[in-house]
């Protein structure tokens, strides 16, 4: 069997920081996300209407940015032995426009043991930045992570 290279609750240290590769958000991403989610809000789908908006053009769905950072985070370092995503507190600070390249920075801010001996809660503060280093989204995510078996 392949060696389990996932990082367990016991391996993760408060204060650890990660940075993901970048990803350019395209018109295709937005169109596919609208089709998948059924969220056809004019903010994301009506190029003509958006010319006269404060953004000047279509912007990506906030939840698309959130989902893309979740994918980028898995490429930001050695993956955790995550059992479940438990919750988040999230703010949308600025628009993600077509052609913007976003990346995520993460920092472990807390670790908490739970009533179950085989798992622990890890809180990661995340910042999503664009190519101009402007913060477009930020928040905290709580992950339930396995403890090292037979530690």
């Amino acid at each position, binding site marked *: 069997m392949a060696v389990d290279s996932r990082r367990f609750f016991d391996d993760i240290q408060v204060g650890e920081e990660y940075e993901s590769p970048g990803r350019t958000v395209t018109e295709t991403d937005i169109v596919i996300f609208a089709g998948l*989610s*059924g*969220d056809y809000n004019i*903010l994301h789908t009506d190029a003509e209407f958006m010319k006269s908006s*404060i953004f000047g053009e279509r912007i990506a769905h906030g939840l698309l940015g*959130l*989902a*893309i950072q979740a994918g980028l985070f898995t490429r930001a370092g050695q993956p955790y032995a995550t059992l*479940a995503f438990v*919750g988040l507190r999230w703010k949308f600070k600025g628009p993600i426009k077509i052609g913007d390249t976003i990346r995520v920075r993460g920092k472990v801010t807390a670790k908490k043991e739970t009533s179950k001996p085989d798992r622990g809660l890890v809180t990661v503060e995340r910042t999503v930045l664009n190519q101009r280093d402007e913060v477009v989204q930020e928040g905290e995510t709580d992950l339930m992570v396995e403890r090292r078996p037979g530690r």
Partner: protein
Amino acid sequence: MAQPSRFYFEDVGLHDVLETPAMTITEAHVTMYAGLTHDEPAEPGAVPEILPLCLTTGLGWRVPQPPLAVLAFMGFEWNVVLPVRVGDTIFSRSRTAAKRSMREGGVVIEEREVINQRGEIVHKGKFTFLVAKKPA
């Protein structure tokens, strides 16, 4: 040109409850979502936790009321109560918890629950939207 029908800040009633139609989450949804975002399911049959949230947003477009005139989605908090599996059928129930008028539009706070085919609340949270006022 006809203006699209939209639901403005003034139209939002405090404590109004809105239930969406339901939708079965399939392997196709998970595959498309994972391909688009690279946010992968933890194991076969699992549904990435952000996906039901995305789908309920779209389900909110299938209710007999025009879409909320959202100027900006400001933020939200979200709790995963129970796992969602492929084959589960979910819908959402939301309630306007607070509204506050601002100079440009108004802030609407919505509580949302995602409920499965057994009536269990699987996810729940609170959303903050900046919503346009009716054009003068």
